[in-house]
């Protein structure tokens, strides 16, 4: 089923109908939050580093054209190739053609959200190339034929029992729900693929302009395998993922990793500067860096450009009450949670994705936890506003708001409205609460009750009280 054709509300209802996934997501998100909190508590410099990280991102983005040019020059000077891709089609075509020209039959991938964004796997498979995901979480959802439900932990919605069943069905192994045994199965299955694949495809956590370095962060080691063993390494990078210098990278890496998994450094921080050099015993013969725009330059021109500061740590997902309640799939895009509610409509257009900016209570937990202090609530409001101006909100809401404005601007009508409301709600209420409100407001009472308005309004009470106060 193509979930993109459903509305956000339909996808959310689907998600709510699957309590075991939701339970797994809730538990997983809570663990992420705890791990991060523990790490931050033991890392007093974190707040200072976050401020600095925000300045680095702002500085990078404000001269992005200069840093992109410097980065590309250095990648080429190191012996790598750079391809500038306007959109998903151009990026996919480049990789598919490269695979064809080099007679690549098998590709091994390390986790990359940008390749999910452009659906590179489909393009390669359509060209007859076998693609195997090597990150354990990605491997699991590839076997299940699903999409990632979390930008960091793609299989967050799966329980160990479900993983055991998947492995049993697809890899001809005995069922087990022992984590160590499951890891062993994945390790030995993927080891053969690492050693025989012709091409490794990775994302990029940060590109370093001053040296043309591609940096990759992994815990499992699959990122190192993907970029060290196959003879061709292709790295796909969203165009905003740069830092100017290695010193900046040394700030960004701990900020990213503490926020993401609660580790001060993840196990492998892998810095790749060009392909294998003469005299080296191993490493890829070719390095290709595909720099992807795919809507990013359009975002950069708008009032929501700040979302491009994002370093994809996933912390905002874990703390979001909406994400915790419906999980990642309900967002319908590879980018879920608060960042996805901004990024998806901004990248792919409000026409299809105008509901996502409303998938938030604006509680501000995302802004508070964001390592780059991105003002996600502001961005959500900007997009809601843009959506309204483009007539994406339902007609009753717009008429309703217009009516309210007319009434609220006229004190007489406002007082009258309150009186009607007070009488009507008290008539309909049972013991002071309305259990059902008629459509279009019935959504409110589906899951909670609405209190009847008081007999005397605040304005009346105020008016009665005021003279006495003055008297004393």
């Amino acid at each position, binding site marked *: 089923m193509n979930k993109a054709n459903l509305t956000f509300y339909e996808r959310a209802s689907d998600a709510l109908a699957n309590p075991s996934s939701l339970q797994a997501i809730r538990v997983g998100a809570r663990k992420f939050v705890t791990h991060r909190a523990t790490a931050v508590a033991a890392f007093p410099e974190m707040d200072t580093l976050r401020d600095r990280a925000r300045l680095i991102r702002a500085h990078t983005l404000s001269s992005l054209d200069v840093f992109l040019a410097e980065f590309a020059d250095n990648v080429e000077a190191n012996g790598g190739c750079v391809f500038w891709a306007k959109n998903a089609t151009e990026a996919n075509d480049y990789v598919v053609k490269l695979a064809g020209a080099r007679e690549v039959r098998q590709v091994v991938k390390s986790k990359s959200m940008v390749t999910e964004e452009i659906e590179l796997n489909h393009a390669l498979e359509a060209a007859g190339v076998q693609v195997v995901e090597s990150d354990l979480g990605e491997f699991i959802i590839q076997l299940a034929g699903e999409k990632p439900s979390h930008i960091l932990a793609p299989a967050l919605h799966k329980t160990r029992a479900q993983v055991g069943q998947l492995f049993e069905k697809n890899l001809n192994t005995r069922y087990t729900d022992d*984590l160590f045994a499951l890891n062993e199965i994945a390790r030995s299955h993927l080891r053969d693929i690492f050693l025989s694949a012709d091409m490794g495809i990775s994302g990029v956590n940060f590109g370093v302009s001053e040296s043309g370095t591609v940096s990759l962060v992994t815990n499992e080691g699959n990122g190192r395998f993907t970029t060290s*063993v196959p*003879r061709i390494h292709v790295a796909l990078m969203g165009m905003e993922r740069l830092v100017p210098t290695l010193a900046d990278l040394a700030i960004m890496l701990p900020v990213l990793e503490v926020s993401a998994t609660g580790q001060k450094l993840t196990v492998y*921080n892998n810095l790749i500067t060009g392909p294998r050099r003469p005299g080296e015993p191993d490493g890829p013969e070719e390095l290709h860096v595909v720099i992807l725009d795919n809507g990013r330059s359009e975002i950069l021109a708008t009032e929501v450009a700040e979302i491009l500061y994002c370093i994809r740590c996933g912390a905002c997902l874990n703390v979001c009450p909406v994400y915790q309640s419906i999980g990642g799939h309900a967002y319908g895009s590879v980018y879920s949670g608060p960042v996805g509610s901004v990024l998806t409509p901004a990248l792919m257009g409000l026409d299809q994705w105008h509901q996502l900016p409303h998938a938030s209570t604006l509680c501000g937990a995302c802004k508070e936890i964001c390592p780059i202090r991105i003002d996600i609530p502001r961005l959500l409001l900007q997009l809601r506003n843009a959506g309204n101006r483009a007539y994406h909100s339902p007609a009753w809401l717009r008429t309703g708001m217009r009516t309210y404005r007319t009434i609220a601007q006229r004190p007489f009508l406002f007082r009258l409205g309150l009186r009607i409301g007070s009488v009507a709600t008290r008539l309909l209420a049972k013991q002071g609460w309305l259990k059902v409100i008629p459509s279009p407001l019935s959504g409110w009472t589906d899951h909670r009750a609405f209190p009847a308005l008081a007999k005397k309004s605040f304005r009346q009470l105020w008016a009665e009280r005021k003279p006495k106060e003055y008297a004393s």
Partner: protein
Amino acid sequence: MNRRTFLSNVRHSLQTGYLPMAQSQALPGPSFSPFDPYDLADQFVEQALAVKSKVHHVTSHAAGCQRVCDIFTKHQATWFMAWRDEFLPIHGLNTELVQRGFQCQDSTIPNEPADRREKHLALSDIPIGLTGALAGLADTGSVVVSCGEGRGRLASLLPPIHIALLETRLLFPGIAHFVQAHSDVAKRSSNLVFITGPSRSGDIEQTMTLGVHGPKELHVILITADHNKTEV
């Protein structure tokens, strides 16, 4: 799309976009107070143990060599892959291991695709990989491994046990100090890796398990010796 159009799109967007706190000036670099690497050894050991590395703190090259042999014996390893002798802080270690009867496997990967695959498969059962380290980071217990000529990537990746030899004099308080002291390190190495413990994953139920794709054990031989590079 060509580079010029791509970059001119970016430039064009920058004229109208709102980037809070944007500034054209680069930030001044942080300044660090001086430190003595030998004071960092205890912190390094503590942090390395916390990320599940095994640390062997030795005070002589001979003791370091003995610890390496002990690991071989414990795991009944008969062969290994390693960086070239000149890149290991214990000079002559490979030769010594070979003399003691362990076989050092050449791990140079050929260019030809079919040969490449065959060589990878031939190396896949090697139980132990031996490398040096460019530095250690005390606040995270990380070893910094710089690959290049005579220093293969696979030795710290392919075998289930990775032994990294690190000299105490190469310890830094953290990654930022290291980068400041080695500002051209990325340019000089096609592959620089900060390794913090053995391979792990939390992808199933966010519960950590060790040894997913990379080494299951990381042994750091931390060598506090008075003099550099003595013969075993």
